[in-house]
Each structure stands twice: as structure tokens, then as C-alpha cells.
């Protein structure tokens, strides 16, 4: 008769042990993990092996990075004048060809935007290995005379570049005085308001970094108040149109106190005035 395949006591016990979920999980996942961990620790105990691994990994990384698909060959600069693009190339010197993984576009952008003449820069790598730099230049809106010399300033008052001579930029209005560029927007508004006086206007001078003086030809000055200077100037222009105020013999129109505009006459005019007044009193 065939023997029954009865399990031995040990086999039976082991089978029952194996059916315990905890034992099962420990052997199935825990044991491989422990073995793998131990092997990794033993392997890493030799620094030479780790070094070799690191180098191999770097090598592999380099071979991928230096594939022709990732190489950048030239830099194209859009939206900048010739000298600005030269300045940009000097600021971010890149020796091509170079892998695109080695380019830090964000840092390059920050670097380019430190150039005064650059309002904003946009960098990207175009397919075909071109580093495209799109630059928005600052537009000079004012010319600023300082102690050091002439400076071009954009509409926000940001200095752009030094100017060699006033005559190079005849169309730009002139401002002067310390801190004049900080109030560039106000200056532009004043120039707009002073358009009727444009043939006599020489420029604006910032006084004590708080208010403007309008400087006209013949040494005349209009002292504008700190608050609402544009309105004051428009009032004065209206007065001038009605009474030809500025054509008269005076040096300063003081509008600093809004309720009380004050005129300062030249010495001759003052003497003349005194004389006329005395005639009146004598006549009486």
C-alpha cells in the first residue's frame, strides 16, 4: 500500500510558523532588506570603491550632458543697441560651445540686469543651440546735470549712462540738482505743463531734494511749491498769458506759498518802481 505523505513534526511546525503573518512578512520583506542593507554597508566600507562609483556616475552624467543636443554654440541678443550688446557680452563672458546644463540662466539674467541701460532681460535656450537673450533697453527721457557731469535718466529716474555733451541730446529736457532723478516722473509732468514756455525754458532744478525751480532764460526762476507744483505752474502760465508776467523785468516768481505769489524785481526795475511811487506821492 502507498505511504501517506505525512509531514514530519519539524516540517509541520515550520509550515505553521510560516503561516504566521508577522513571520511571513518579516521573512519576505524584512530579510531581503536587511541583506541588501548589510551588503551596501559592507560595500561602502571601502572608500576607494565609493570614489570609483562617484567618478563613474559623474562620467556618465558628463557624457549625457555633452551630447550635441544639449550644446549651446552662440549667444543672440535681441532688443539692444550695438554698444549695449557689447556690454552684455562683456558682463556675461561665455566661451562657447558649452553644455546647456552648465549655464545658470537665472544668475546670468541677474547679472545682465545690473547693467544700467537694461530694463529687463529674458534668457532662454532655443533648440539648435542658441542662447537667446531678449533685452528691453531703458529709454532716456531726461538729461540730468550733476557735479560729475551729464547723465541720461529714464522716465523712472533710473540713470542709464553718462552723456558727453548736452548737445548730443538736444531733445531731452534738462534737470539739475541733487536727487533730481528721484522725482523724474514729476519733472516730466512739469515739462509737459511748461510746454507754452518751451522757447524760454532752460530746465528744472531740484532744490533741497524736495521742490522744483523752473529756470528760464534771462536768469528768471519760478519757485514752485512742494505740494502740487504742476497746478501752480499752470496757474502761473495762465497769468503769464493774460498779463505777460514773465516778459517783465523780474528775476523770481515765488509760488511757494500758494495763497501769496511773490515777485522779485531786478534792481533797475525796483529803482524805477521806487521812482514812480515817489512821483505819485510828490504829485499829491
Amino acid at each position, binding site marked *: 500500500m502507498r505511504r501517506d505523505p*505525512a509531514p514530519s513534526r519539524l516540517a*509541520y511546525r515550520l509550515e505553521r510558523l510560516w503561516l504566521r503573518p508577522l513571520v511571513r512578512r518579516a521573512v519576505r520583506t524584512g530579510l531581503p532588506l536587511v541583506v541588501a542593507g548589510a551588503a551596501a554597508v559592507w560595500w561602502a566600507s571601502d572608500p576607494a570603491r565609493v570614489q570609483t562609483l562617484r567618478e563613474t556616475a559623474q562620467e556618465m552624467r558628463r557624457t549625457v550632458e555633452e551630447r550635441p543636443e544639449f550644446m549651446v554654440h552662440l549667444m543672440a541678443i535681441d532688443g539692444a543697441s550695438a554698444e549695449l550688446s557689447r556690454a552684455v557680452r562683456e558682463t556675461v563672458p561665455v566661451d562657447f560651445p558649452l553644455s546647456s546644463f552648465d549655464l545658470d540662466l537665472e544668475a546670468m539674467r541677474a547679472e545682465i540686469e545690473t547693467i544700467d541701460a537694461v530694463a529687463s532681460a529674458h534668457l532662454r535656450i532655443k533648440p539648435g543651440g542658441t542662447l537667446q537673450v531678449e533685452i528691453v533697453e531703458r529709454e532716456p527721457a531726461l538729461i540730468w546735470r550733476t557735479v560729475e557731469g551729464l547723465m541720461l535718466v529714464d522716465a523712472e529716474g533710473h540713470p542709464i549712462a553718462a552723456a558727453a555733451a548736452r548737445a548730443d541730446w538736444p531733445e531731452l529736457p534738462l534737470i539739475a540738482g541733487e536727487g533730481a532723478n528721484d522725482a523724474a516722473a514729476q519733472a516730466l509732468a512739469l515739462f509737459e505743463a511748461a510746454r507754452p514756455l518751451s522757447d524760454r525754458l532752460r530746465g528744472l532744478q531740484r532744490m533741497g531734494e524736495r521742490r522744483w525751480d523752473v529756470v528760464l532764460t534771462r536768469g528768471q526762476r519760478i519757485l514752485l511749491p512742494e505740494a502740487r507744483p504742476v497746478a501752480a505752474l499752470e496757474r502761473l502760465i495762465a497769468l503769464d498769458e493774460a498779463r505777460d508776467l514773465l516778459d517783465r523785468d523780474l528775476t523770481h516768481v515765488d509760488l511757494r506759498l500758494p495763497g501769496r505769489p511773490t515777485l522779485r524785481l531786478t534792481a533797475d526795475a525796483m529803482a524805477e518802481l521806487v521812482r514812480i511811487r515817489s512821483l505819485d506821492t510828490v504829485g499829491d
Partner: protein
Amino acid sequence: MTDLYQSQRAMRRMRKQAMDRGVVAILDVGTAKIACLVLRFDGPGRLPAHEGVGSLAGQSSFRVIGAATTRSRGVQFGEIHAMQETERAIRTAVQAAQKMAGVRVDHVIACFSGARPRSYGLEGRIELTDSVVQEADVARVLAACDVPDIGPHREVLHAQPVNFAIDHRTGLMDPRGQTGNALMADMHLLTVEEQAVQNLAYCIKRCDLELAGLASSAYVSGISALVEDEQELGGACVDIGGGATSLSIFIKKHMIYADSVRIGGEHVTADISKGLQVPMHVAERLKTVHGGVVATGMDDREMIEIGGDTGDWEHDRRTVSRAELIGIMRPRVEEILEDVRQRLDAAGFEHLPAQQIVLTGGGSQIPGLDGLASRILGQQVRLGRPLRVQGLPQAAAGPAFASSVGLCLFAAHPQDEWWDFEMPADRLPARSLKRAIRWFRDNW
């Protein structure tokens, strides 16, 4: 008696533990085969009631997730006589069932058919102190049953209250909450040989399993093979096993009598083996393939090659007619049934309102048995198969597995037994702390 009470309570506790864990094994230690089923208890209500599926007597609360059978060794007449062999067979069955289920089982509920079961009807009566019956009164009346002398080296396997009566009203299932002056109880006590129980417990312990319950196979095959009205109106289940034929009588859904005849299918096989001079396994094959108990003219002409491997051509080419085979089998089957008839007569089976007899067990598959049985046992004989339970493989659905399936039902819905009730305080040892605590609890 107290010792048994304690061990039975311990088993009941173990069964509760197993239920909580959700997995329990069923072990049917038979003479021909050892079957092991692994049950998983999901708790009730997994099937919605509106789909026409009721609780099905608790069957829906569990599911068979592992089943294995192995040829039994070291068991004779349903009793273990070679412990090591039986232990190995149990290990085989348990391991295979565990493997199929994929879970480890620690608790096992076992049944066996032999060990000379003896039934006693017990009667107890108490006067009710408080006119309403409490649970303690039930315990008291059960304790008041006068226990007969069950003889030396015997143990109580089942002690089930089967009937309660209050004053003149009898046939009560549950007397709790009813009023009256006197409470009476009938209890069915089933005793078996101590040695058989101890051997089985030892084998199971050697397999690293905890014994969570013991049942007589007569009882459990009765609950699985008898249908509800047979259990209610009176019926007998005859489980023709390998080494022993066990019979149980049910009425009002309670077993009232159980006995076993120490002849079974293996004796039929042995007769064939001796009569035809063939080895046991050939005899077993002849019995199962060609066997029968009613010979017809056709069977004289049907020749069966019985074979052999001695090398002697004459010996190895022997043939036998089916009628001869039937002629060998029939007297033994008749003997079994005559013995069953005797036991039923002794138990007073003819006084029951219905006398349905259900034949089940592996031996009941002999063709023509129902015809022979109705001549010997009476007209109301049918062949029974166990109930269908969820997840039971087709191979384990035959009548040979009646007691395994019954054991599943027994595990899911155990019958209240005597030891499930609190022991009355006056039965406890006089100086025990428990007695003091009980007295305190009863009086406040």
C-alpha cells in the same frame, strides 16, 4: 464531576476565543478517513436578508476556506489505537487544509464515533423560591438531576437539557421568565470511554493545536443529515462509517439517544478481502465500484476481474460475478442494520410520533441499501446527505462528510449544555472564594 465541568468550560472558553479570532478547524477523526475543514467566521449579516436568504440556521455566518481529507491510520472502531500513526494522519490533514485556507489555525473542534457511547435520561426537580424562573434556577435544576453511576473510566461528552417543565406544563424550550411552583428538567447525558477522549486530546495536543470542543459523531451527523421536521417530530440518523455505525435519535430538535454499533464499512471490505482472497485496497475498490446489496439475474452474468500481482497467471486472472460480491457484502450490511434495529428498539424508537430513519455516512452509498434498510428498519427510510454549507468543495459534499458538516454547524451554533450554566453555589467547595463572591452577588 467537577473536573469534567472545568475542562468542558475551558473548551467552551477556547471556542469563544477561536470565534473571536475568526478561524477554527474542524477535525473528524474517523476509521476510514480523517477530514479537516477550516472555517472562517465573518459574523452574521453578510448576506442581505431581503434576497430570500435567511440565517440558514447559522450557516451563513461561516465559510469553509480549507478542506482536506487523508486516509486514516491507527484508528479502529472510531477509537485511536496507534497514537503516533493517528498523529501523523491528523498532521497531514491539518497541514493540507491550512495550506488551502492560507491561514494558520490554532483551535480545533473534533469528533469521533467510537468509544462506546452510552445514553442516560436524567431528571431533576426543584421548588422555585421566587415564583419566576431565573437563569440560576435553570442551573439549579440541572444540578439537581440525579446522576446515575456511569461506571469507571467513563466521561461525560454531552449533557444537554432537552426538556423543561413548570408544574404541569411540559415541553418548554426555555423556561426563563415563566412563573410556577416547581421546575423540572430532563437532561440527556452521553458518556464515552475516558481513554478514547484522552487519546484524542493527546494527539491534538501533539499537533500544536488547542482542543476547542468535542462532540460525538452520532450527534453531529444527526444535525447535518436530518432536516428540520425530522429533528422536530422524531427521527433517527444512522451514520454508517468505516469502523463504527453511530446512530442518534432526535425529537423536538434535541438528541435524546445516541449509540454506536461497532461494525462499519471496513468490515464489509474485510469480508470481501477474506472471501475473495484479495488485498484490502483491491477489496475496497471492488466494494466501491461494483458493490451492492440486492442481486438481480443480470449480476450473475456481470463478471468482475479481481486481478492480483502474484505472477501466478491462474491466480491473477481470477474473475468473480457481481452476484458473488453482493453475496459477500449483504450479510454484513444486514448485520449492521439488524444491530441498528436492536439499538433503536432498545431506545423505544417506535414510540416516537414520526419514525423517519436517515442513512448517511460513507457506507450509505452502497447501491440498493435503502431497499434493504427499509425491510429491516421500517418503511420510512431515506438516504441523507449533509446540508450544503458555504465554500464546501464538491468533493466534501457527499454523505461521508455528514459528521464534518455537522461539526461545522455545531461550531457555529452550539447547543446549551449543562456546563454552560453557572454552577450553583452549594456545589462549589465550601471554603472557596468563588462561593463567597457568588453568595454576595446573589444576595445584593
